Each structure stands twice: as C-alpha cells, then as structure tokens.
C-alpha cells in the first residue's frame, strides 16, 4: 500500500512535468506582454523594454524555462509580475475561499445527488427516474453563469436570503461563512449533481442486476437496506471515481462561479492572471490545480480499498 502510494506519487512527476512544459510554452507564445500592462497606459516603448528586461522576459525561452523549473524544484513558485507578493503568498491567501467553495459544493452535491441517483435507479423507468434524469441533463445544458444569475436574482435580490456577492472568511464565524457560500456552492454544484446522480443511477442499476442483490432479497432483506447497504456500497467505486474526475469540472466551474460571486479565490486569481499575463501566477496555479487533481484522483483510487476489499495495492 505504502509502496503503491509512493509509486503513484512518483508517477505524478512525469505528468506534472508534461503539464509544466505545456503550460510554460503556451504562455510564452502568447501575444500579451505583461510588461506593457505593468507599465500602464501612458508608458513609452523604452519603459516597457526596461520592464521586460527586469522581468527576465528578454532571455531565450529555454533559459527562462529552466530557471523557472529550477526554482519550482527548490519549492519557490516565483514572484508575481504585478503584485509585490510571491506567488506562494498569493495562492495561500486565495486558497481558503476556493477550498471552502469546493468543499461545500462537493458535500452538497454528494448529499443531494446520491440519494437522487439511487432513487432513480430503483424506480427505473418511472416518472421519478425521468425527472431525475431530466434534471441531470438540464444540469449539463445550462451555462453556470446563467444558473448563477438566476439564483442571485431570486434568492439574493428578490428574497434577500443570501448576500449578493462576496465571501466571509470562516474566521469571522461559521454562519456568515456558510451563508456567503450557499448560493455559489449551489450554482457550482448543479452540474456536479447532474454528473454524480447520473453515475449513481447507472452503477446502482448495474449492481441491482447482480446476483448478490437477489441473494439479499432471498434472505428477506428490506428494499431500503438492499439499496443502501448492498447496492450502494458495491456501486461506490464508479461513483467516487466520477466524484474525482468531476473535480476537473469543478475547477472549471470555480473560475466562473468566483467571477459571478466576486469570491476572492484561486479561480478569480486565474482569470485575473490570465488577463494580465502574469506568467508566474498562471504557471503556478495551473500546476497547482493539476497537482490537486492528480492527488485527488490518487485519493479516490486509495478510497477504493475502503469500498471494495478486493482492491489491494
């Protein structure tokens, strides 16, 4: 098990290296020039050139890459072109909102989606199934920002239940924190719920046709327990897999959701950094997101052993 984890962690190295190379090259080939942006609207060409030199953008790309790689390996993510802050500082002050949002979204999604999916599978072919599946297809079809605007309009502006925007740090109390995240988390979770509910339904359906379900019924077990004790646990592996894969979706959604709700998280930071061509920040964030993604999927793989004793690493 330990050696499996180590091997998997080792395997992330080439993955992240690929990511690093791709991201780096992509950014350096972009037309935007961070120096011009830093210099401001009235800067002269010479001023901009000076800044470019200062930022090390005038060196050959390969050299820039190895300098960057070297410092990454030393654990130094570099310094933002814009803010007088290290990338590490920036990321660490932005991480709380994003983590909170992601956490709440996942919890919300799992709590809502799994019972829905099980129900749909159990009542396969009935109107309940159709409604759940219909909702899940619609969840995939409506852009996140539309959902966001609608929720804001109804629940924040018309009903005034939740704040329109903004994020409250958890240090300022759990309730304000929670309140500020309800709408964003719900917005973000729609597509996630759709995904998980759908996968839950499929894999529970698959499991429901298994012999051991019949065995459980032959023992005289009640349907609810058959569903939640026998079926769900066996269906868990594909479900947690999709929860893990869905994190990619979530990261994409975070970018939009944080924009809509003005949440100062990593998603906003990404957009801001991309629009400003703040290369060190973009590089670090994409690398960090990729790492998290790989890590989450490693955790997901490890969690298989909890759900399925046949899986051993």
């Amino acid at each position, binding site marked *: 098990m330990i050696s499996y984890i180590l091997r998997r962690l080792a395997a992330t190295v080439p993955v992240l290296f690929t990511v690093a190379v791709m991201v780096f090259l992509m950014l350096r080939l972009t037309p935007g020039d961070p120096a011009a942006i830093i210099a401001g609207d009235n800067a002269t060409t010479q001023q901009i050139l000076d800044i470019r030199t200062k930022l090390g953008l005038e060196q050959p790309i390969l050299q820039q890459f190895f300098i960057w790689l070297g410092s990454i390996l030393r654990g130094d993510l570099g310094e933002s072109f814009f803010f007088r802050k290290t990338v590490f500082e920036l990321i660490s002050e932005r991480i709380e909102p994003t983590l909170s949002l992601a956490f709440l979204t996942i919890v919300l999604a799992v709590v809502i989606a799994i019972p829905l999916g099980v129900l749909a599978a159990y009542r396969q072919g009935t109107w309940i199934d159709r409604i759940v599946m219909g909702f899940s297809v619609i969840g995939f*079809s409506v852009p996140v920002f539309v959902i966001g605007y609608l929720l804001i309009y109804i629940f924040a502006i018309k009903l005034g239940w939740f704040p329109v925007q903004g994020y409250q740090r958890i240090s300022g109390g759990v309730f304000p924190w929670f309140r500020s995240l309800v709408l964003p988390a719900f917005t973000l979770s729609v597509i996630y719920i759709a995904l998980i509910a759908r996968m839950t339904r499929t894999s529970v359906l698959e499991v429901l046709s298994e012999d051991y379900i019949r065995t459980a019924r032959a023992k005289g077990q009640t349907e609810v327990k058959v569903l939640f004790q026998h079926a769900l646990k066996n269906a868990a592996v594909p479900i947690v897999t999709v929860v893990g894969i869905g994190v990619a979706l979530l990261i*994409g959604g975070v970018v939009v959701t944080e924009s809509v709700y003005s949440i100062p998280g990593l998603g906003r930071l990404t957009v801001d950094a991309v629009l400003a061509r703040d290369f060190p920040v973009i590089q670090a964030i994409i690398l960090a997101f990729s790492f998290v993604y790989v890590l989450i999927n490693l955790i997901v793989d490890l969690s298989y052993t909890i759900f399925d004793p046949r899986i051993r690493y």
Partner: protein
Amino acid sequence: MTAPASSSPVAETAVPLPAKPTVWRKLLRSPNVIVGIAIVLVMVFIGLIAPLIATSDPTAINPGARNRVPMATSTMRMDDGTRATVTHYMGTDTLGRDVFSRVVYGARVSIFIGISVAILSVSIGLVIGMAAGYFRWLDSIIMRIMDGLMAIPAILLAIAVVSLSRAGLASVIIAIVVPEVPRVVRLVRSVVLSVREEPYVEAAVTAGTPTLKLIIRHILPNTVAPLIVQGTFICASAILVEAILSFLGIGIPPDVPTWGNIMAEGRQLFRIFPHNILYPGIFLALTVLAVNMLGDGLRDTLDPKMEKRG
C-alpha cells in the same frame, strides 16, 4: 450416439432465433433520440436558412436603437439615404444590433463549433487511442502525455490556449479540442484493450490477418458506438464551453455572433434587459439539451451493457 451431424434437425435451418430488431428501429423507438434529433435538426435548419429569416444584418450596429426590448421597432438609415423600419423580435443589444438576427446566425457558429470539436476530438482521439491500445510499446508514452493533458483542468487549458493566439474560431476550437482528446483516447484505448482479447479477434490473428486490417476490420467497428455517444457529449459540452469562454471574455471575437457571445455581451444588463441573455440562453440550453438527450438515447441503444439491463 446420435445420428450423424449433417442430418440433425437443428442443423438444417439457419434462423432459429428471432431477428434482432435493427439498431435503427431501436433508435427510432427511443424518445430521447427522436426529440434530440428533432431539436438538433431544427437548430441546424435555422442556422442554414439564417440569411432568409434574419430580419437584418447581424453585425449591423445602430447606436440610436440600442437596448430595445423585444418586439420594438427601429429605423435604420441606409447608405442611400432611405430609411428602413425593422421589428426586433428579440430586442436589440447595446450596439443596437438585432438580437433575433444574431441568435439565428449564432446557431451557425455555435453548432459549427459543437460539431467540429466533436469530429476533431473524436478522430484525433481515435487514431491516438488505437495506437496506444494496440501497440504496447507506444501505450505508456502516449498515456503519460494524455495523463498530463488530462491533469490540466479543461477550462484552464482552454483559457490558456485561447490567449495563445488572437481570439478566433480556430483557437477556440483548438482550445476545446485539446482537453477532450485525452478523454477520447482513454475510451478508445479501453475498447481496444478489451476487444483485442475477444476470441474473434484472436481467431482473426490465427487466420493471419495483417495488423492494420485487423484493427480496421475487427477492432475499429467496436469503437464506433461508444465514440458516437461520446461525440454527442463532446459536441454538447463544446457549445457550452464556448459560451463560458465568451463569458470570461476570451472566446470568439464579439463581432461574430455566437450564442455564447450574445449572452456574454448581454450579461451585464441581465437585470434590465434580460432578453439579451434569455433568448440565446434558451436556444443554447435547448440545443445542448437535445444533443445530450441524443447522446443518452444513443448510449441506451448502442451500448450493449445498457441493453442487457433492458
């Protein structure tokens, strides 16, 4: 012992089993497929005849008639000095462009993006996936690269790719294709890996079938159904991702009408002039919904696993 085989009663006739309903028949029995196809066809049709039904040039600006509500009319001064009166069925946007015309023309671009992304990612993924699945030595190299690509969240990758070159149709399409490819590769590879163990493939190997023929004849067809299904989902998500990229301000250039664009431009005025986001939103969601339904329907009918469950 029984009588010699050649005279045995079961052996003579060839069709003891009832004919399986053909795939087509089954497809046409699936409400998802029918509704999906119908809506998609309507949208494609709208896109095709856009020049006929659009009430004005979708890019023609008219600063004097901006932000009109649906069904309002406006007059446009022409170059030759005449004035034309237009009814804006879906109102106008902040530049006074006719939203209805833009939505109708937008169908072209949005659907084009969906379809071309689906075709591109499926075909690229197919080739790479086949290679990875069939040639063991290539497998680990390809899969490592694919893992790398997969590890970058799709939207971030798209954002990065779009900012790569000037915003335009091509870069948006590339941006959406790139993250989809590894998913297709994985799918194809898994199909290839399982199919190559099938006895009939092994039988073809013992029959001396050359590798390329083997792949094309015996393995490729098995990927068609899952790929069609996957393709529809890619198509749906491409249309959506385009809208999201537009929303973040890095999509197709705003003068080209796409549903995503119209919504992105209209989003600031959502509270006052919801029509800018409502109508393209309805078209977009309807299309994505239809394509997703089509995909679901296809999967239900084409995926033998689902079939077993009946």
